[in-house]
C-alpha cells in the first residue's frame, strides 16, 4: 500500500487547516472531521517502512517513517482529532481557532511520523508555535499564560535542539538508529528538553497555568497532543529506559495528584492530572522493559481517550453554567445526565477501576514496576519496589480527586435553576469516547493488538493478564482507600485556599531577573551604541573618501591635484611581479 505514502499526512492536514480558516464554519469543520478521521484507516493500513527519505541541505532526513509506535500515535491522534473537531463545532469555536487547532494536530502528526531527529525537532517546534497561537486566540488572561507557555517551550525546544546537534556530532547522522540519543551531555539535554513537554516535576508549571485558560474546545486539543508527543519523543530518545526517568515518572504521578486534590478550578484540576497520568507513561518508558514500554504506550492511548472526555465534560459544564470553580457548582447530575454519565465513565477510567480502560494500561505499568524493576529500584518496601509504591499512591490520589470532582460538580447539593444538558454534537462526541473507554476496558485484546510490543507474549517472564483476582482486588482496594481518604480530608481540603505551586517562585524570579537583565542590557547597549556610532561614522568617512584620509596623513603633501588611490598600469604590473615572486619564494 505504498500509494498511501504519496503525501505525508502532515501536509494534508495543514492544507485542511488552511481551508477550515476560510470555508463556511460547518463545511470547514466537517472537512476537518473527515481529514482527521481519515488518519485512522490510514494509520491502520499503511505498511511499515521508510518513505520520503530526502536530503535536506546535505543531511539525510525522513519525512515519513511508519513503525508500530508511530502507527499507534497516528491512530489515536486521528480518533481524538476527529472527536475534538466535532466538539469544537458543537461548542461554538470560531473557524480560525479550529484552524489553529488543526495545524497543531498536523504538526503533532508530523512529529510522530518523523524518521529522523531533524524532522522531529522541526515539527516539535512548530507544535509549540501552533499551540501557542491556539491559546492566544482566546485573548484575555490566556495571552499572558500563552507567553509563559511559549517561553518555556522555546527553552525546552532549544535544549532538545542542543541534544540533537550533540547527538549528530557523536553519531554522524540525524536518522533514528533505534538506539536512542547518544549518551552523555546529549542524553541530559534531551531528557530536560523533552521533560518540559511531558511536565517533569519542576518543569511542569506551564501545564496548570495554560490549559485552564483558553476556549473549552481548545483545552480538549491541548490536553492530548503536546504531552503525548513528548512521551513518544522520550521513548525515541531513551528506548532502553533510565532509572532516573522512571523515578521522575513516579514523582510526577504523586506530585501531580497531590496538587490536583488541592484544586477547585475544574480544568486546573484536570491539568494536574495530566502531569500525574503522564507520570505513569514516563515511568513505563523509564523502566524500558517490554511491559514498561507496552504499558506506557497503552496508557498513552487510553489516557488520550479519557482525558479528552474529562475536558469535554468539564467544558460542557462551563459552557452551560459559565462557572469554572467546583465551589460554585453542585447537583448537576440531575440536570445533565449525559454529561454526568460521561464524566463517571471517564473518572472511573482515569482512576483505574476494573472494567475501564485505565485499569488495563495502568496495570501494565505497575506490573512492569513490580517485576521488571526489582534490581534497579534501589528502594524496596515489603515486597513492593519504590516506584511501584509511588504509582499506587498516585492511584489512590486519583480516586480521591475524582470523587471530589464528581461529588462537588454533579452529586453534592442541589442546583438552583434549570441547566440544559450537552447539545447534540457535544453529546455525540462524549458518548463515542465514553463507549471506547469501556470497550477497551472490557475487551483488552483489542488494545493489546494495536500495541507496538506484545505484553501478553508467552516468552515474557511475566506475561500480562488484565483480569486476575489480585489485580481486580488491587483496583477495588485503591478505590476504597480513595473513598475513605476523600471523606477523611474533605473538611480540611474545603477550607484550603489556593495552594501555591512552583510558579509562584518562577514567575517573580523570571520577571525580576529578566527586568534586571533587560535594564542592564539597555544601559550597556546605550554605551555600546554611542561608541559604535562614533566608530561607524569614522569608518564610513574612511571607506567612502579614502583619498581625504590619505591626504590628511600627509600623502601627496607637496604635489598639487587630488590624491588618487587607483592602481595605475605600472603599479599593477609591479604588484603582479611581487605577488608571483613572493609565491615562488614561499613554495621553495
Amino acid at each position, binding site marked *: 500500500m505504498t500509494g498511501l505514502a504519496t503525501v505525508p499526512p502532515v501536509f494534508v492536514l495543514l492544507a485542511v487547516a488552511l481551508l477550515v480558516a476560510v470555508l463556511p464554519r460547518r463545511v470547514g469543520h466537517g472537512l476537518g472531521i473527515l481529514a482527521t478521521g481519515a488518519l485512522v484507516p490510514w494509520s491502520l493500513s499503511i505498511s511499515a517502512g521508510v518513505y520520503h527519505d530526502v536530503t535536506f541541505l546535505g543531511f539525510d532526513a525522513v519525512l515519513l517513517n511508519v513503525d508500530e509506535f508511530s502507527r499507534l500515535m497516528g491512530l489515536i491522534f486521528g480518533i481524538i482529532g476527529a472527536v475534538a473537531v466535532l466538539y469544537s463545532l458543537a461548542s461554538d469555536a470560531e473557524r480560525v481557532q479550529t484552524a489553529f487547532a488543526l495545524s497543531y494536530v498536523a504538526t503533532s502528526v508530523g512529529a510522530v511520523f518523523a524518521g529522523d531527529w531533524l524532522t522531529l525537532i522541526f515539527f516539535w517546534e512548530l507544535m509549540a508555535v501552533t499551540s501557542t497561537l491556539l491559546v492566544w486566540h482566546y485573548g484575555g488572561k490566556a495571552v499572558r499564560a500563552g507567553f509563559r507557555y511559549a517561553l518555556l517551550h522555546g527553552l525546552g525546544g532549544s535544549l532538545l535542539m542542543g541534544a540533537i546537534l550533540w547527538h549528530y556530532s557523536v553519531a554522524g547522522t540525524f536518522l533514528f538508529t533505534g538506539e536512542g540519543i547518544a549518551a552523555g551531555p546529549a542524553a541530559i539535554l534531551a531528557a530536560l528538553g523533552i521533560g518540559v513537554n511531558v511536565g517533569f516535576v519542576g518543569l511542569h508549571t506551564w501545564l496548570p497555568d495554560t490549559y485552564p485558560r483558553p476556549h473549552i474546545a481548545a483545552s480538549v486539543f491541548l490536553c492530548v497532543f503536546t504531552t503525548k508527543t513528548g512521551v513518544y519523543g522520550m521513548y525515541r530518545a531513551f528506548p532502553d529506559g533510565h532509572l532516573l526517568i522512571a523515578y521522575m515518572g513516579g514523582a510526577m504521578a504523586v506530585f501531580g495528584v497531590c496538587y490536583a486534590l488541592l484544586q477547585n478550578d475544574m480544568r486546573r484540576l484536570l491539568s494536574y492530572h495530566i502531569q500525574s497520568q503522564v507520570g505513569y507513561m514516563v515511568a513505563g518508558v523509564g523502566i524500558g522493559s517490554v511491559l514498561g514500554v507496552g504499558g506506557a504506550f497503552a496508557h498513552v492511548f487510553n489516557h488520550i481517550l479519557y482525558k479528552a472526555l474529562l475536558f469535554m465534560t468539564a467544558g460542557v459544564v462551563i459552557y452551560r453554567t459559565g462557572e469554572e470553580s467546583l465551589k460554585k457548582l453542585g447537583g448537576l447530575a440531575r440536570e445533565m445526565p449525559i454529561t454526568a454519565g460521561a464524566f463517571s465513565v471517564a473518572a472511573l477510567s482515569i482512576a483505574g477501576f476494573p472494567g475501564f480502560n485505565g485499569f488495563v494500561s495502568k496495570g501494565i505499568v505497575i506490573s512492569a514496576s513490580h517485576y521488571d524493576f526489582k534490581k534497579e529500584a534501589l528502594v524496596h518496601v515489603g515486597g513492593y519496589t519504590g516506584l511501584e509504591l509511588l504509582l499506587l499512591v498516585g492511584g489512590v490520589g486519583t480516586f480521591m480527586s475524582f470523587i471530589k470532582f464528581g461529588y462537588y460538580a454533579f452529586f453534592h447539593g442541589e442546583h438552583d435553576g434549570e441547566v440544559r444538558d450537552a447539545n447534540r454534537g457535544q453529546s455525540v462526541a462524549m458518548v463515542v469516547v465514553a463507549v471506547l473507554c469501556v470497550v477497551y476496558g472490557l475487551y483488552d485484546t483489542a488494545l493489546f493488538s494495536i500495541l507496538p510490543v506484545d505484553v501478553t507474549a508467552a516468552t515474557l517472564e511475566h506475561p500480562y493478564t488484565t483480569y486476575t483476582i489480585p489485580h481486580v482486588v488491587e483496583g477495588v482496594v485503591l478505590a476504597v482507600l480513595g473513598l475513605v481518604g476523600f471523606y477523611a480530608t474533605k473538611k480540611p481540603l474545603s477550607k484550603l485556599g489556593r495552594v501555591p505551586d512552583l510558579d509562584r517562585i518562577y514567575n517573580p524570579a523570571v520577571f525580576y531577573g529578566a527586568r534586571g537583565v533587560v535594564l542592564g542590557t539597555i544601559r550597556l547597549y546605550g554605551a555600546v551604541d554611542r561608541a559604535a556610532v562614533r566608530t561607524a561614522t569614522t569608518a564610513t568617512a574612511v571607506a567612502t573618501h579614502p583619498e581625504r584620509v590619505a591626504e590628511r596623513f600627509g600623502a601627496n603633501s607637496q604635489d598639487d591635484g587630488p590624491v588618487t588611490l587607483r592602481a595605475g598600469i605600472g603599479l599593477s604590473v609591479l604588484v603582479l611581479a611581487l605577488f608571483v615572486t613572493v609565491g615562488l619564494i614561499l*613554495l621553495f
Partner: protein
Amino acid sequence: MIEHAPVLVIALPIVGGALPLLFGLFADRLGWPIAAVTLLGQTVLAVALATTVVDGGAVSYVPGGFVAPYGIELVVDGLSAVVLVLIAAVSLGVLAYARRAGPHADSFYAQYLLLVAGLSGMTATGDVFNLYVFLEITGLAAYGLVASGRSASAAVAALKYLIVGTIGASLYLLGAGYLLAATGTLNMADLAGTLAEAGYDSTLVLTAFGLMIGGLAVKVALYPLHTWQPDAYADAHDTVSTLVAALVSTVAAYALARLLFSVFTVGFFDAVPIAQTALLTVAAVSIVAGSLLAVAQSDVQRMLAYSSVSQFGLVIAGFAVGTQAAIVGALVHLVGHAVMKGGLFAATGIVERRTGARRLAEYAGLGERAPVTAAGIAVLLFAMVGVPPAVGFVGKWYIVVGAVEAGTWSLVVVLLASTLLTLAYFARLFERMYFTAPPSASTTDATPVPDGGNGREAVSTGMVAVVVAAALLAVVLGGTAPLVEQIVEQTVSTFPHP
C-alpha cells in the same frame, strides 16, 4: 555527429565570428542574426554534449588524428560540460540584451563570437599549451570588446587590461614551459602521471605551479591582482560588461580548478601543503578585501566589480579546499555568480539608459522609478548575499560544508563573515532603491541633456526580460544542486589520484 561535438563547440563560434565581417562587405547589420543563429547552435551543441557526458562519462576528442600525448586532445568531463552549457546559455542571453543595447557594429559581433570560441576552447581543452592559446584568444577578444566602449576611459581601461592580462598570460606560458622541461609533455592527463614521477617538490614543478596559478589568478582577478578588473567592467559598454563579468573570470577560475585537479592533482597538495595554504590564504584575503573595497565604492558598477573579486575568492577557496562538497559548492557558485553578476550588470545598464544613474546616490527611489528592474536587482542582490533558497545560498552552503569537513576552521569563519560583508555593500544599494526618496522631479526629468550623447536611451522589453530571467534563474538554479552534486561525484571519481 555528437562525437565531434568537443571540437564543434570551438569551431562553430570561430566560423560564426568570421561571417559578420565577410557579409559586412555586402550588407549592414547582419552581425546580430548571424551571432544569434551561431549561439543557438552552440547552446544546442553544449546541451547535447552535457547530456552525453552525464550519461556516459567524459568524452575525449583528438583533432587531426595526432594521437595524444603529442597531438592536442580535447576532453569534456562533467565539470567542463557544465561550464560549456553556462558559456553558451549566458552568451545567448546577453545577445538578447545586445539586440537593442548594441553595439551594432559587425566587428563587435565578430569579437563577441571569438570570445565565446576562446572561452569554450579553454573549457574543452585537455592540453596546457592549448589552454594558453585559448587564454590569449579570450584575452584578445575581451581587450577589443572593452575598447569598443565610446568613452576615452574605456580605451585606457582596455589598455590596462591588455598589459596586465598579457603579462599574466605570459607567466602562465612560462609555467607551462617549466612543466614541459620537467616532464616532456603538455597533455593534462599525461602530466598528471609524469609530474608524480618528476617529484612534486622538485624546483621545476614548484616554479611551474607558482607561475601558472599566478598567471591565472590575474585572469580570475583575485586580490591584489584585480586592478585591471573594476576599470574594465565599469568603463566598457554595458553589453560587454555583462558578458565579460559573467564569463571571463568564471572560465579562468574553471581553468585554475582544472589545473589543480587534472594536472597537479590532489597528490600535489598532499606533498606540498604550503601550496594549498597559500592558495587558501589568497582566496580568503580576496573575499575580505574585495568586500571592503566594494563597500568603499560610490559607483554601482565598480561596486559590482569589486564584489566579483570577493565572490571569486569564495570559488577559489572552494576549489582549494578540494573536498567533494566544496567542489560542488564552488561549481554551483561559479554558475550562480555568472548568472547573478551578469544580471546585475545588465540591470545597471538599463538603469543608466532609463535614468542616467551610475552612482549609488543616484539610485535613490529606483523602486518607484523603474519597479521591474529594481525588483530584479533586489532579487539578485539577495541571491548574491545568500538568502535561501537562492543559488547564492546553496553554493556558499556547500563550500562551508566542505570547509567544515576538511577542518579548515579559519576559512569557515571567513566564509560566514563574507555573507555579512556582502550584505554590507548590497544593503547600501537596496536601501537606496527602496527606502530613500527619489530626487525631486525637477532635477531629474526636466534637465535637458547638454551634449546629446548621454541622453536617455531606449530600453527594450527584451533587455528587461534578460534581467528578470536572471533573477528567476538565480532563485531556481538553487534547486539544481543535487544534479551538480551527481555530476561532480561522477567527475571527481575520474580525477587522477597518483
